[in-house]
């Protein structure tokens, strides 16, 4: 089973790289936020997978929970910041 988890984790990391396209090249700021949010939800699963590979799930569950919470807070804060203080379009435009 450990191998299955290992390769699943690697595959998830690959998907995160794929999603990284949006934060890097997304035409508007909100596109970048979508990418960051998607990466965050994958990271939560990845943390639990790492915990199962190391046989220390009870530790990594706490980290995953905290990560999910802070990810949510970060997305909320970023969206609120951009809609209130900044123009939303790309900084280059």
């Amino acid at each position: 089973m450990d191998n299955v988890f290992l390769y699943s984790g690697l595959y998830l990391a690959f998907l995160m790289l794929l999603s990284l396209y949006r934060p890097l090249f997304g035409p508007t700021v909100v596109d970048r936020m979508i990418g960051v949010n998607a990466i965050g939800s994958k990271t939560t699963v990845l943390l639990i997978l790492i915990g199962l590979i190391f046989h220390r799930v009870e530790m990594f569950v706490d980290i995953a929970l905290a990560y999910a919470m802070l990810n949510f807070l970060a997305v909320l804060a970023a969206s609120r910041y951009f809609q209130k203080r900044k123009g939303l379009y790309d900084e280059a435009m």
Partner: protein
Amino acid sequence: MDIIVCLFLFAGLFFFTGGAVGILRFPDFYCRLHPAGKLDTLGLLLALIGLALFNLHHFSLGTLLTSAKIILIVVFVFLASPTATHAIVDAGVRAGLAPWTKGEKRR
């Protein structure tokens, strides 16, 4: 037992793949939110249910509580993810981002 766990995990990974590809392929910001908001949430649900089941292999109170904690993450994400999606879409609307309609060039 292992087969069920693998089934759940792979179903979750499948939906995650859909989410990642959808974020890349869809033409504009509003459409991209659909895969990001839905597919990732369901993928997380399926993958975490699979992992929580696997964690119950050596059944004891400790592993049961750990699995309950994993389910707690799922519940949290199910509350938080639509809200985060809504926050992002709200930011887009307030900025006056026009939705893509059929026949336009992709952005």
